[in-house]
């Protein structure tokens, strides 16, 4: 009988050890890895300069598209802007800027000061539409292909390494 008890205790401790060991390797912060490979929603977004809307379905016409969520009040957006300007020079890549919870005048001034890298400028006044793209803060950037499939999602400001990575992906 003692033998059975030892076996059960050993099994229990082994299981506990395995679970704790495996959970050591798990990241406890949100990451977007699960979203890569999924398609973005086909939704209507309001255009910044007019009262018209734009459907993300239209992005199937582009070989590659970048959706960048930004605002004039966001410091990191200012930091990443030169990198967006760099990306705007890539021919088979279209840039869609979604101005997030911002004042129009401030956004216009921001683009006047820093340049406008966007092929299409849209806006999301209350941030609700951005939920359709899984955005939870800005800046966020989503790289998609012509099938609207997410190739990469960047949280936080794009740096020069990200620009090089995007260049590599779209050149393939």
């Amino acid at each position: 009988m003692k033998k059975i008890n030892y076996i059960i205790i050993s099994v229990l401790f082994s299981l506990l050890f395995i679970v704790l060991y495996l959970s050591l390797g798990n990241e406890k912060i949100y990451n977007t890895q699960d979203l890569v490979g999924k398609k973005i929603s086909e939704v209507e977004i309001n255009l910044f300069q007019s009262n018209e809307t734009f459907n993300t379905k239209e992005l199937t016409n582009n070989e590659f598209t970048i959706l960048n969520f930004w605002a004039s009040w966001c410091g990191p957006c200012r930091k990443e802007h030169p990198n967006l300007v760099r990306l705007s020079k890539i021919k088979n890549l279209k840039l869609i800027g979604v101005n997030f919870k911002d004042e129009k005048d401030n956004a216009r001034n921001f683009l006047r000061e820093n340049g406008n890298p966007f092929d299409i400028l849209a806006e999301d006044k209350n941030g609700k539409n951005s939920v359709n793209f899984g955005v939870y803060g800005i800046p966020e950037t989503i790289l998609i292909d012509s099938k609207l499939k997410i190739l990469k999602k960047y949280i936080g400001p794009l740096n020069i390494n990200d620009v090089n990575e995007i260049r590599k992906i779209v050149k393939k």
Partner: protein
Amino acid sequence: MKSIIKALILFLLIFSESYGDENLSNEILKNLRCLVCQGQTVHDSNSDFALTIKSVVKDKIKEGNNEREIYTFLSEKYGDWILLNPPLKKNSFLLWFLPYLLFFLGIIFLFFLIKKPKIRP
């Protein structure tokens, strides 16, 4: 008098409906993780992200979506990380069944521990 009763019924109907929606909304928000907070639910947080999600959940309820549909929508957009009750999948199998397995093994262990050896004459 009749018009007063009608108005009262109408008021109660509207009130009960909005109260029901509010309850459902709270129930859902308590099961959502605030992605920008430390260990808080969307319900408990007043962060910008939580406020947006609260508003989106209310809209979805108004549109007629049920609880499961709202969870599915949000997990499609943010992954299962947003759900405090992760769904049963290949990678969460252990998480769901390990407590039951440990419980079962514990019972066997206790059974053998408590069981007294039979005294043979």
